[in-house]
């Protein structure tokens, strides 16, 4: 067992434990998730931009993790440019919608 192996195990354990702690605190509502899918400053309206960004995030994450899980040899698996375009578009839609809502609210006030 070399120091490199020990360090690798430590990092992996830390990342997994930290991710599990964050997930646990989200499920037990210790991490505030109120308004995650709502429009800014309005808790009652669900924001389509946020929903599609969440879906795109989950899809890209799942794709990349499946690529890592099925990795055999070679370099680190890459993500296809299609997914990057989808994800960039999704982020752009989210940002535009947020800017639009902010502009509308500033105009009404």
């Amino acid at each position, binding site marked *: 067992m070399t120091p490199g192996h020990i360090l690798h195990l430590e990092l992996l354990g830390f990342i997994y434990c930290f991710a599990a702690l964050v997930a646990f605190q989200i499920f037990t509502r210790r991490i505030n998730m109120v308004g995650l899918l709502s429009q800014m400053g309005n808790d009652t309206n669900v924001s389509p931009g946020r929903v599609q960004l969440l879906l795109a995030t989950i899809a890209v994450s799942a794709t990349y993790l499946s690529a890592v899980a099925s990795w055999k040899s070679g370099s680190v698996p890459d*993500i296809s440019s299609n997914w990057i375009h989808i994800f960039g578009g999704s982020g752009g839609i989210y940002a535009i919608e947020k800017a639009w809502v902010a502009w509308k609210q500033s105009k009404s006030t």
Partner: protein
Amino acid sequence: MTHVMEVCAFIGCGFLGFLALIILWKVFKGEINLNSLVSEANGEASMSRFQLLIFTFVVAIGILELIDKMNPAGFPPIPDGVLTLLGISASTYAVGKGISYSQPQLMKPTPTDAGGAQQAAQDATTQADVALAAADQATAAASAIAGHVETIKTSADDAKNAAKAAQDASAAAAGHVETIKASADDAKNAAVAALAAAAAATAAKTATGNANDPNNSPDPGTETGGQQ
């Protein structure tokens, strides 16, 4: 020199592991507060923060899982696609933050609005959880103390019973001593009476002998010699 380097590497590994454990423990105990990990300044959760959090975990886990399988071992080159993905995610977060803070009136947390109330509710929930955990610990400690008290009470009862038995035994022994003493007194009295009776009988026998002997001399020394 190589051994010194190895020892230093092991010490560094131990230090980093210890640091990681402390951080995880403090997060678990709530001393490092993650309540606003994905929240904006106005208390509402931010989708861009949440997305950046997810991607950070996904890419970190993916690369760390692959590092050990790589041949030759080493830090692998990160593909451009992954870097682009992280860049888009971070840019979305930065743009969202910029838009939010460009409207200061929207970012002020107010206790009267729903977001503020929800934040207060979250804080109260967190504090209630901490209090609940403390109450659980106190209950466990009280149970342990109750167990000890029960043990002490049982021991005290045992000691009390033993003392009572010793007292009974002592009383019984005292009774026996009294009885033995009375018996000894009776025996002593009987012996005294027997001695007196024996002396009387001897005296009577002597008197009878003197009365029957015509040559009886009144000299007590002769009498005594004749008895002998």
